[in-house]
């Protein structure tokens, strides 16, 4: 398929702007651009057809099953799109005076109230634009807190080896060093190792619960206690909140700070890789460090306050991805108290049901009940028949199913991480199980064939070695 640039025809254009109704003023010669501006010249029809063709070469939740572990690809409700398109929200300039944006401030304030209630936190910021951004903000809060206490020795962040790569990368961006602790045989935090690692140089622990294997850390109260007793704080990576939202609260488990992925747990769409929103909630003792401005209530009105002397500053311009937060609020209004807990329970039910069905031939890592996701391993098959997790993923592409997450978490070789979410019906899970199983059986019969997959997609397996060795990053 051609690039927009390759469809360009000199002289082709649209008539978007009227003629200028004032005298033309150009920059003086010293400021003028000399380099030609080679953007494609197209008609609107060209653009329309181009993107329709690109749409056919993309796979969304609207196309089918999308069991990407840890991404929570649940259905994105359309009412969220409707509210996020209301001109009363889209046409609002971020620097309008407070009294003209009471609706926007109400959205942020309500979202804060409800999400604090769901997470067991006391205050929240919506400034971070994504999960990783939220993590950085949270660890910055820890840093500021320890600095304020004169605790400058506390420069270590403890991270389990099952953690998402953003966790250690975040710690380093916050000027900390990472202490990796090896998980126990059951995939959970090894308490002995944690006790050994926690000390007076510990700034904090970053933890996901349930963890990246889909297992609930049953010793969570002991874990947070150990870190607190050592003088550190505990950070909740909210990527897996979908398993427990409305059922258990991170704040009750001993976490001091959480980030939420609104684009995972709270149904805002992924957009092909963003925009998301990494809301950060914290207990009251950390609230004064949150990025500015803070929203405060003064009588019947809401105000934005910049005079926050203890704030870490800003992590982004303006207030965050407002239109994304609005979508999450719409979702919370729709689900309500019961719907949220019900969603979590069904996410867990669906995962266990699918896991049971797949356990008839796949090797399941999880023992007993899983949470909202579970992990399969192709380690044995890779050694004995050279059929890898990648092969299974590629074969699924031909069957109209988006593959699960592959090769994560790193502690499980040849991993396939599967998260069906609560919005899949029983018949889809049955169908998916059949497909997964038939692929496995075919692969065992004819391992050579599976290396050729996918065969029916618009491209076959791309040469990633070439892409990295000889980078062509523009047309």
């Amino acid at each position, binding site marked *: 398929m051609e690039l927009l640039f390759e469809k360009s025809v000199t002289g082709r254009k649209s008539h978007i702007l009227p003629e200028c109704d004032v005298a033309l003023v150009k920059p003086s010669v010293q400021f003028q651009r000399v380099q030609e501006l080679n953007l494609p010249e197209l008609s609107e029809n060209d653009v329309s057809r181009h993107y329709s063709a690109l749409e056919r070469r993309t796979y969304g939740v609207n196309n089918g099953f999308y069991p990407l572990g840890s991404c929570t690809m649940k259905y994105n409700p359309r009412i969220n799109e409707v509210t996020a398109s209301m001109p009363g929200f889209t046409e609002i300039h971020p620097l309008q005076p407070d009294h003209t944006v009471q609706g926007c401030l109400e959205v942020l304030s309500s979202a804060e109230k409800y999400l604090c209630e769901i997470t067991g936190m006391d205050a929240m910021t919506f400034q971070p634009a994504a999960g990783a951004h939220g993590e950085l903000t949270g660890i910055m809060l820890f840093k500021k807190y320890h600095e304020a206490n004169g605790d400058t020795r506390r420069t270590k962040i403890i991270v389990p080896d099952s953690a998402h790569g953003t966790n250690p990368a975040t710690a380093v961006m916050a000027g900390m060093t990472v202490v990796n602790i090896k998980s126990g045989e059951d995939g959970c935090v090894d308490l002995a190792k944690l006790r050994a690692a926690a000390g007076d140089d510990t700034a904090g622990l970053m933890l996901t619960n349930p963890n990246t294997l889909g297992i609930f850390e049953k010793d969570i109260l002991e874990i947070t206690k150990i870190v607190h007793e050592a003088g550190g704080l505990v950070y909740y990576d909210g990527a897996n909140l979908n398993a427990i939202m409305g059922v258990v609260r991170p704040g009750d488990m001993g976490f001091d700070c959480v980030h939420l992925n609104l684009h995972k747990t709270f149904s805002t769409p992924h957009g092909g890789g963003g925009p998301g929103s990494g809301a950060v909630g914290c207990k009251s003792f950390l609230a004064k460090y949150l990025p500015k401005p803070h929203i405060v209530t003064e009588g019947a009105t809401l105000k934005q306050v910049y005079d926050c002397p203890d704030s870490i500053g800003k992590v982004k311009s303006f207030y965050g991805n407002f239109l994304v937060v609005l979508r999450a609020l719409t979702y919370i209004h729709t689900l309500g108290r019961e719907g949220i807990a019900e969603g979590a329970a069904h996410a867990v039910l669906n995962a266990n049901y699918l896991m049971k069905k797949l356990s008839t031939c796949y090797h399941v890592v999880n023992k007993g009940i899983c949470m909202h996701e579970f992990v399969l391993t192709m380690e044995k098959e890779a050694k004995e028949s050279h059929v890898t997790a990648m092969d299974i993923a590629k074969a699924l592409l031909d069957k109209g199913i988006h593959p699960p997450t592959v090769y994560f978490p790193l502690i499980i070789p040849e991993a396939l991480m599967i998260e069906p979410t609560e919005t899949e019906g029983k018949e889809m899970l049955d169908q998916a199980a059949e497909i997964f199983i038939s692929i496995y059986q075919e692969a065992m019969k004819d391992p050579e064939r599976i290396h050729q997959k996918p065969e029916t997609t618009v491209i076959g397996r791309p040469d*990633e070695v070439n892409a*990295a060795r000889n980078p062509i990053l523009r047309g």
Partner: protein
Amino acid sequence: MNISSNLKYTKTHEWVEIMEENRIRTGLSDFAQNSLGSLVYVNLPEEDDEVTAGEAYADVESVKAVSDVNSPATGMVSLINEEVLDAPELINEDPYGTWLVEISEISEMVELMDADAYEAFCREEE
């Protein structure tokens, strides 16, 4: 597994060629390049950088992974192989003919194995 008999080896699969008393060249063994897979990029230190025996001084990237390369000696980087920066695949194609850096002013070395000992070591790792 290819092992060059003229060279010495470290426990982390680097080979060492002793040029003079205080100067060595080093690269990655065949075992290393084979387990790393197709290499796409090499991050080398700069000339005059100091390196420490047993610690990482460079890294190599494949498509989906990064691996540290450890220094066999404490000293100073006197030369880097610029060729490998443009063609990291040389390490895969000719591991013993593709040196990464030259280290001089050596004050300490890690424990080195000769070819036979290294062969036995590799067999155990597998």
